[in-house]
């Protein structure tokens, strides 16, 4: 709600009504009293309770008529004119109230809608952060798992070698045994974290890659126009069925497409992003190709927190790869023939006997 113009609209409005009534009684104003009465109604419209304005309007109407009873002195004015003036006053009070109420309702609706939109946006952002946190955790757990596997295995081997050695040093094999035990313990903790991070199980929607591409292209249309780039869609016919979490897959396409546009922003010359979808019996492939400056290293890119952007976190590609691999596919980068970069991912096509 906006800050009200007047601190206590209902009280102010009632005071105004009283003042106008006293003045109306004392003077022979005729229709002129209607004008300050409508002000009172307008002020009452700002009061929080919805009944305030109609109540004040009713009061004003009653007082307009009551004045005739209390102070019938009408001077030289003819009776029909007095009645007509009072009627006009009632009409203007009524109209003001009606229009004011209608406007008030429209405003309330708009405010409600705005509030709902804000809430929705906040929820989306929150979910995005949560899902990102989950993905980062899963990614981190996986990355840590590799060195841990090496430590655990090497420690076990060392225990064996220590026993084989001459002379046997019991302290050595005990120490190495402790290393192996602790590595196994750390691995157990990681496994728990991975399980928790993976609990929000991705959905199993039927995914139409071409459809997802169109959704993402529409979402980022403004960015394409700002970069003054062109988008070329070469969407093949996809007959096979792929399953997964549609939102997550769209997120991956979004990341790849956004990267491609950003690679073109501020560059001279040809600026084209090409999105290609193809299909084999085993998998559907989507490639996003740009005509930017290309890639230095096609593997380092996927490491978490690796970034070439000033304001980047370096998580987009790492998360995208985690998402695609969780769907049984692959995500990789190659230098494009056009000189830029090309990012591709596959999604396995469900075999009929599985579904």
């Amino acid at each position: 709600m906006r800050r009200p113009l007047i601190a206590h609209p209902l009280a102010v409005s009632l005071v105004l009504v009283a003042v106008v009534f006293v003045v109306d009684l004392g003077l022979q104003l005729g229709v002129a009293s209607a004008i300050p009465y409508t002000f009172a109604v307008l002020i009452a419209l700002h009061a929080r309770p919805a009944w305030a304005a109609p109540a004040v309007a009713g009061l004003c109407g009653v007082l307009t008529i009551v004045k005739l009873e209390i102070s019938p002195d009408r001077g030289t004015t003819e009776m029909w004119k007095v009645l007509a003036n009072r009627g006009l006053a009632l009409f203007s009070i009524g109209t003001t109230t009606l229009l004011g109420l209608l406007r008030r309702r429209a405003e309330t609706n708009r405010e409600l809608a705005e509030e709902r939109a804000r809430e929705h946006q906040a929820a989306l952002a929150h979910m995005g952060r949560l899902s990102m946190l989950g993905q980062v955790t899963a990614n981190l757990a996986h990355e840590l798992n590799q060195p841990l596997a090496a430590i655990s295995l090497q420690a076990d081997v060392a225990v064996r070698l220590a026993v084989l050695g001459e002379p046997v040093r019991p302290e050595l094999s005990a120490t190495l045994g402790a290393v192996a035990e602790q590595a196994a313990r750390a691995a157990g903790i990681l496994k728990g974290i991975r399980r928790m991070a993976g609990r929000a199980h991705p959905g199993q929607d039927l995914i139409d890659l071409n459809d997802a591409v169109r959704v993402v292209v529409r979402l980022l249309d403004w960015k394409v126009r700002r970069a003054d780039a062109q988008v070329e869609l070469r969407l093949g016919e996809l007959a096979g069925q792929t399953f997964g979490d549609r939102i997550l897959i769209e997120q991956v396409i979004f990341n790849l497409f956004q990267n491609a546009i950003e690679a073109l922003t501020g560059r001279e010359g040809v600026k084209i992003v090409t999105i290609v979808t193809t299909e084999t019996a085993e998998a559907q492939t989507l490639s996003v190709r740009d005509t930017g400056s290309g890639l230095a290293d096609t593997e380092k890119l996927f490491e978490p927190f690796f970034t070439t952007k000033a304001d980047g976190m370096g998580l987009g590609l790492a998360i995208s790869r985690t998402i695609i691999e969780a769907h049984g596919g692959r995500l990789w980068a190659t230098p494009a023939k056009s000189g830029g970069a090309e990012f591709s991912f596959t999604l396995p096509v469900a075999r009929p006997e599985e579904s």
Partner: protein
Amino acid sequence: MEPTIFVVDDDEAVRRALISAGTLLARPVQAFASAGEFLAAYSPEQPGCLVLDIRMPGMTGLELQRQLADNGASIPIVMISGHADVRTAVEAMTFGAVTLLEKPFRLEELLSHVRQALDADFTARAAQAQHAETGARLAALTPKEREVLEMIAGGMTNREMANSLGISVRAVEDRRARLMKKVNARSVAELVQLLATR
């Protein structure tokens, strides 16, 4: 050719740990950083087993497994994976992996599965070799000997064969003896078994 333990894992630290572990079995160990490098170096005649990481950039472990199956290479595979979900495990097993180990695993687990894989490969290759030898021996028979062989397998006596072929019982016995010698069988039972393994 000596049975070799092949290792394919893109993570250098894990690869080195697998080499140390494999060396404990007193077998040659060959390690590769990618599926492509392994495919380029490996020939299906090479006995051994393969310790294979599932998650790798480029060709994944499961894809390499399929490629090997397509090439007719039946090397037993011990799959290792950082995150073994049921679907992956089922797929790996369907295509003939010996087992799927979830990283990190203990040395004992790994060694016992690698030993099993080596044994499986040895058994499979021995059976294959015998199969090939049997085929060669049977192929060396003359058409007349083959005729007799089929009759023996059909359960006919020497007399019945002699009547059927229009030769003397003595000639049948001669052919029969030559045949037994050629295929290196000592009894009819062995002969029939030989035919059955074809």
